[in-house]
C-alpha cells in the first residue's frame, strides 16, 4: 500500500502542480458553478413559490441540494476521459503503456488531487456565499458520516464512468461528441439538473437503480436525511458499492479489449 502510494505520488504531485498553475481555472469554475447554482435556485424557488410544492424535496433543503450538487459535480469533474481520448487520438497511449504502472491508477492519481483541490477551493466560497442568502440547515453527525462514505463511492463511480468514456476514443474520433453526451446524461441522471426526487414516482424508481444516481442523488439523500430508516440508508450505499464493483469488472474488460486494438493498430 505504502509502496503503491509512493509509486503514484509523482503523478499526484504533477496533477497538483498543474492546479496551482491554473488558478484562473479554479476561479472560473467557481464563477460558473455559482452562476449555474443561482440559475437553478431562481428557477426552482419560482416553482416552489408559484405552485404545489413538490413532496420529494422539502423547500428547506432545496438550496442545500442545488449548491451541494454543483460542488459534488466539481469533485467529479476529472479530465480522465479527455486525457485518454487525447492520448489515443495522438497515438501517445503506446508511450503510457510502457510505463511500469497501472494505467488506470495513474490516471486516477493525476486527476483526483486536482479535482479535490478545485472542488474545495471553488466549492467552499460558493457554499459560503449561498449560506449568506439562504439559511442552510445543519446536518446531523450520523448523516454527515453516511455522506462521507457515499462521497468516496461517488468519486470512484465518476472516475470509472470517465475512464470508460475515454476508451470510446478507440471506436470514434468524435470524442468531443461522446463527452458532451456523457456530460449531459450524467448531469441529468445523477440529479444535478433536476433533483431526482422531483421526477414522477415511476421514473424515480428507475433512475435510482442506475449507477449515475450514485454520484449526486445518493450522497445528498443521505446528507439531507431523505431516507427512511437505517436499512434504507444501507440500501442506498449498497447500490452505490454494487455499481463500483460491477464497473470495475467492466473497466478491466474494456481495457483489455482496447489493448488488443493498440496492438493491432500500433497505437
Amino acid at each position, binding site marked *: 500500500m505504502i509502496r503503491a502510494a509512493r509509486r503514484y505520488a509523482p503523478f499526484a504531485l504533477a496533477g497538483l502542480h498543474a492546479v496551482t498553475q*491554473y488558478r*484562473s*481555472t479554479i476561479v*472560473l*469554475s467557481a*464563477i*460558473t458553478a455559482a*452562476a*449555474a447554482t*443561482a*440559475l437553478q435556485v*431562481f*428557477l426552482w424557488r*419560482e*416553482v*416552489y413559490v*408559484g*405552485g*404545489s*410544492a*413538490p413532496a420529494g424535496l422539502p423547500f428547506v433543503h432545496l438550496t442545500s441540494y442545488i449548491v451541494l450538487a454543483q460542488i459534488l459535480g466539481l469533485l467529479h469533474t476529472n479530465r480522465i476521459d479527455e486525457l485518454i481520448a487525447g492520448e489515443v487520438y495522438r497515438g501517445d497511449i503506446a508511450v503510457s503503456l510502457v510505463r511500469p504502472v497501472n494505467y488506470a491508477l495513474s490516471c486516477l492519481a493525476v486527476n483526483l488531487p486536482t479535482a479535490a483541490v478545485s472542488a474545495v477551493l471553488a466549492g467552499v466560497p460558493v457554499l459560503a456565499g449561498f449560506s449568506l442568502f439562504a439559511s442552510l440547515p445543519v446536518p446531523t453527525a450520523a448523516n454527515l458520516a453516511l455522506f462521507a462514505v457515499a462521497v468516496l463511492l461517488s468519486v470512484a463511480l465518476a472516475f470509472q464512468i470517465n475512464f470508460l468514456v475515454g476508451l470510446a476514443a478507440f*471506436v*470514434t*474520433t*468524435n470524442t*468531443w*461528441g*461522446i463527452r*458532451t*453526451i456523457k456530460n*449531459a*446524461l450524467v*448531469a*441529468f441522471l445523477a440529479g444535478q*439538473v*433536476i433533483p431526482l426526487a*422531483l*421526477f*414522477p414516482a415511476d421514473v424515480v424508481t428507475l433512475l435510482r437503480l442506475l449507477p449515475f444516481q450514485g454520484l449526486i442523488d445518493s450522497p445528498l439523500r443521505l446528507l439531507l436525511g431523505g431516507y427512511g430508516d437505517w436499512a434504507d440508508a444501507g440500501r442506498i450505499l449498497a447500490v452505490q458499492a454494487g455499481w463500483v464493483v460491477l464497473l470495475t469488472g467492466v473497466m478491466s474488460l474494456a481495457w483489455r479489449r482496447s489493448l488488443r486494438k493498440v496492438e493491432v493498430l500500433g497505437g
Partner: protein
Amino acid sequence: MSVSTARRYARLTTVLCGVSLHRLTAYRMDFLIGAASFVIRIACQIALISVIFQYVPSLGGWTQQQALFLLGFSLLPRGLDRLFTDQLWILAWQLVRTGDFFRYMIRPVNPFYSLLSERFLYPDGFGELATGIAIVVTAAGAMDLDLTLVQWLLFLPLVLCGALIHTFIKAFLASLSFWMTSSLNVMVAVNQLSEFTAYPLNLYHPVLRGLLTWVLPFAFTAYIPARYLLTGDTGLLLWTLPVTALTVLLGYGTFRLGIRRYEMPGS
C-alpha cells in the same frame, strides 16, 4: 468589399462546405454522435421544462409551450453559429500556444475566414439546428401561434443577428488567447452562461439579467426576439441591430489586434 471579392468568398465557401459534407459521409459515426450529443442535451432541457410545469401552470408568466418555444428559438442562432465557427474553440484552446495559427497567416484569404473555414459544417451544429427547428415548429403549432407579416419578415434577420452575436462574442474571447496563450476557460464559462438564455430571463436576479443583456448580450439571441415573436412586445428589440453591430466590431477588432501582436513560438 467589392463584388468580385464577395463572389470569390462565396465560391470558396461552397467548395469548403462541399468538402466538409464529403467528409461527413466518410465519418458517418462521428456525424451521428455529434448530432446526437445535441439532441440528448436538448432532450434533458425539455425534460427539465416538463418537470417544472408538472408543478406550476406558468413560470414567470411563461406557459410551457412558450418556454419550449424560447428554448427552441435559442438553438437556432446557436446552431447556425456552430455550423461555421467551431474552429474558434480551437483558437481559444491551443492554436496560439502550439504555433499552428501561422497557417491562417500564409494563405491569401482573410485570416479570420481562413481560420473559420477549417471547420465549416462540423456535424454538431446540424443536430442543434434541426432540434431547434423541430421544437419551434411543435411549440408554435401547439400554441396556434400566428405571426404577423412583419414578424415573419423579421424572423430570419433576428436569427442571423443572434448568430452574429454568438460568433463575435466567441471571436472576442478566443482572440484573448493572443494575449493569454489560452482562453478556453473563459470561453467555457461564458458558454455556460449563454445557456441561461434558453429560459425566461425575467426569472433571474436583475444583476444577472443586466449582465446577459448589456455585457454579454446573449439576451438578444433568444429572450428578446422570442418574446417579440410570441407576444408582439418589442421591448428592447430595437436595440438588436446596434448591439449586434457593436459586438461584431468589438469581436473582429480584437481579433485584428491579436494578429498584429501574434508571435509564433518556436522554430
